[in-house]
């Protein structure tokens, strides 16, 4: 039992963060809160990739003469890391666009609360 | 198998009315030129169709594949006796209707005449396509075109009532079309073939009775809406709000007969008599048709609106044909085919008369027709011919077909249907003769004073169709060999082989 927890606890936490983020997006009425929930979802996914790429006892892919070069188990796969760099950039750009939209909405309606917004739009 | 010849004539015959549409639309400001296009297309189409007759009588089949529309299925036209039979009826009556239409719309001062003539041409083109389709998918395509083309004609008056009828018509027609598409797709999935074949092509592939019934019901629902089978008929009386020539050609000839023609195709050329009998499908069809005949005649008795009464009469007579097909006896099938032609000439005469009365005297109700026979003698004489024919009085043509229908009922041993035919004949008299009584034996009111016959553009076609009915009654083989064609078709369908028409040529 402990072994399962030890092996997979990171995934449980990530699922929790993912769900918290989704909850924020769905339930929270403030648009800024929705954005925050969205960035939590994104962080959870990015971390998920990093966690899944982790191997116990392995290190970064920098050639170490002390280690065997041909044993792949001794090195972490660098590909997920590089991919997540891209994903982080994408996430930040998305946030930038959403903030721009929020500012436009606020300037026009002077509020970020969804019920109030819908009321004012009628 | 008879030799099949490649020829573009069937395609040209279908395209002639369709090609007239842009010309009609373009000459909307010049009515005479516009009407010239209509007439030119009508004569061209009819001439092309008739030019195919000798070949078909000599046993040749003419076909033309237009293009492949789905892998393995071509949009193709084929002139077999059955298709030609229907095409001749439609194209020849279109000429008469065109003249009559010109007289009618000008006499009644209808709006949007260009749209009227364009839609009319579309309908005829689609009907000819239906008649000459070589396979089910081509049939479906033209069938849907016809549904679409009729809509502007039904709502032509643009009143609240006509909009309601138009929507009703569209709902019925489109649902039916979709069911037909599903049935066609199912047929393709079963047989990987959609080509019409005398005697049917589903014989070997249908094993399950439930599936056979379901498929048949889908087909019958698909074509039965246009054929006015109860309970799918209610659009037809509603569509009588359309101008009378529309009712005449479309609701006595082209549209409803396309539905009946579809029944013939499905029963005789898709399922085939043997398969129908094997799964008891003929009983279903015959029962529906018999009920429709009786009910429609009874309802017709209660209508005061002349066109509505004619509409219910049409529903009844369409089911004569369906019942004839469902009897699965050669005489019955032949009687059904002949009735397809004979009902067309007689019923169109009646509708023409109704239109002439409306344009001339603005009367639509039967109770207003007192003494009208003296004012419009030619019209009412033609009306009498039609009435006598539909009631089954010799020597009008409809007597011949009714005779064969009755013979078919006898020879198939189903005497209950003989009773249906006879009872319906009596009911026909019951709802038609009061009209004649009012027209000829009651004194007319003061309102009739000063009126005379309608314009010659209308009266001449009326007289022609009446004479035609008479001639076809005296000589069923006159002019276009309807009798031989019908006999050949029914034999080939019953035998499950191609038409043994060779030798019947003049």
């Amino acid at each position: 039992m402990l072994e399962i927890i030890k092996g997979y606890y990171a995934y449980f936490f990530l699922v929790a963060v993912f769900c918290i983020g989704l909850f924020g997006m769905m339930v929270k009425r403030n648009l800024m809160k929705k954005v925050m929930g969205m960035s939590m979802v994104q962080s959870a996914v990015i971390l998920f990739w990093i966690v899944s790429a982790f191997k116990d006892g392995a290190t970064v892919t920098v050639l170490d003469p002390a280690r065997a070069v041909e044993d792949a188990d001794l090195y972490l796969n660098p590909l997920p890391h590089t991919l997540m760099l891209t994903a982080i950039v994408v996430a930040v750009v998305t946030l930038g666009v959403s903030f721009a939209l929020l500012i436009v909405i606020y300037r026009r309606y002077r509020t970020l609360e969804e019920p109030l917004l819908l009321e004012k739009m009628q | 198998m008879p030799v099949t010849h490649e020829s573009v004539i069937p395609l040209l015959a279908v395209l002639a009315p369709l090609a007239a549409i842009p010309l009609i639309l373009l000459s909307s400001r010049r009515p005479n030129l516009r009407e010239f296009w209509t007439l030119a297309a009508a004569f061209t189409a009819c001439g092309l169709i008739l030019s195919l007759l000798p070949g078909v009588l000599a046993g040749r089949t003419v076909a033309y594949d237009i293009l492949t529309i789905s892998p393995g299925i071509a949009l193709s036209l084929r002139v077999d006796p059955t298709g030609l039979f229907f095409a001749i009826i439609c194209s020849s009556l279109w000429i008469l209707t065109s003249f009559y239409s010109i007289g009618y719309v000008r006499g009644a001062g209808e709006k949007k005449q260009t749209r009227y003539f364009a839609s009319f041409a579309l309908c005829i083109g689609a009907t000819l396509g239906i008649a000459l389709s070589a396979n089910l998918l081509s049939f479906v395509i033209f069938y849907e075109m016809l549904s679409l083309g009729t809509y502007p004609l039904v709502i032509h008056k643009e009143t609240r009532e006509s909009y309601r009828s138009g929507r009703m018509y569209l709902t019925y027609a489109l649902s039916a079309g979709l069911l037909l598409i599903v049935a066609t797709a199912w047929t393709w999935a079963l047989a990987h073939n959609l080509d019409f074949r005398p005697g049917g092509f589903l014989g070997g592939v249908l094993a399950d009775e439930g599936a056979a019934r379901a498929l048949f019901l889908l087909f019958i629902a698909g074509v039965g809406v246009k054929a006015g089978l109860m309970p799918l008929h209610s659009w037809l009386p509603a569509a009588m709000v359309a101008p009378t020539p529309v009712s005449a050609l479309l609701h006595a000839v082209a549209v409803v007969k396309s539905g009946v023609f579809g029944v013939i195709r499905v029963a005789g050329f898709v399922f085939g008599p043997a398969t129908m009998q094997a799964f008891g499908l003929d009983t279903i069809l015959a029962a529906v048709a018999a009920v429709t005949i009786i009910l429609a005649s009874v309802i017709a008795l209660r209508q005061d609106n002349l066109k509505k009464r004619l509409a219910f009469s049409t529903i009844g007579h369409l089911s004569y044909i369906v019942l004839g097909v469902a009897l699965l006896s050669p005489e019955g099938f032949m009687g059904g085919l002949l009735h397809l032609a004979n009902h067309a000439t007689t019923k169109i005469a009646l509708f023409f008369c109704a239109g002439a009365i409306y344009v001339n005297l603005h009367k639509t109700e039967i109770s207003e027709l007192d003494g009208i026979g003296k004012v419009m003698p030619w019209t009412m004489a033609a009306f009498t011919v039609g009435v006598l024919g539909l009631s089954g009085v010799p020597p009008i043509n409809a007597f011949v077909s009714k005779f064969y229908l009755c013979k078919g009922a006898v020879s198939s041993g189903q005497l209950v249907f003989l009773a249906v035919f006879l009872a319906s004949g009596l009911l026909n008299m019951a709802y038609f003769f009061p009209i004649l009584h009012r027209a000829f034996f009651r004194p007319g009111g003061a309102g009739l004073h000063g009126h005379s016959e309608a314009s010659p553009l209308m009266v001449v076609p009326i007289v022609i169709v009446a004479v035609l009915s008479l001639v076809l009654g005296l000589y069923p083989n006159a002019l276009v060999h309807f009798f031989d064609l019908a006999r050949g078709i029914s034999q080939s369908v019953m035998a499950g082989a191609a038409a043994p028409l060779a030798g019947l040529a003049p």
Partner: protein
Amino acid sequence: MSWLIEVFLFVLMVVSALVALRSRDLLAAAVTLSLFSFMAAVIMASLGAIDVAFTEAVVGAGAVGVFNIVAITLTTRESRD
């Protein structure tokens, strides 16, 4: 025992996420969210993804934090939920 530290970091991350969503003061929420991103960066570092960790720390915690704060100053600080 290093995994216990990671568990602690994760717990902190979840808590900061919850706090950020619950806070009615958006500015406080934004700061908590930066903490959330920082925890994510530390976890990444402990999992051997040093390069991603640095990026996350700079971009996720830093730049996004600034974005948040700018956006909040341009709009409003209050939230009803």
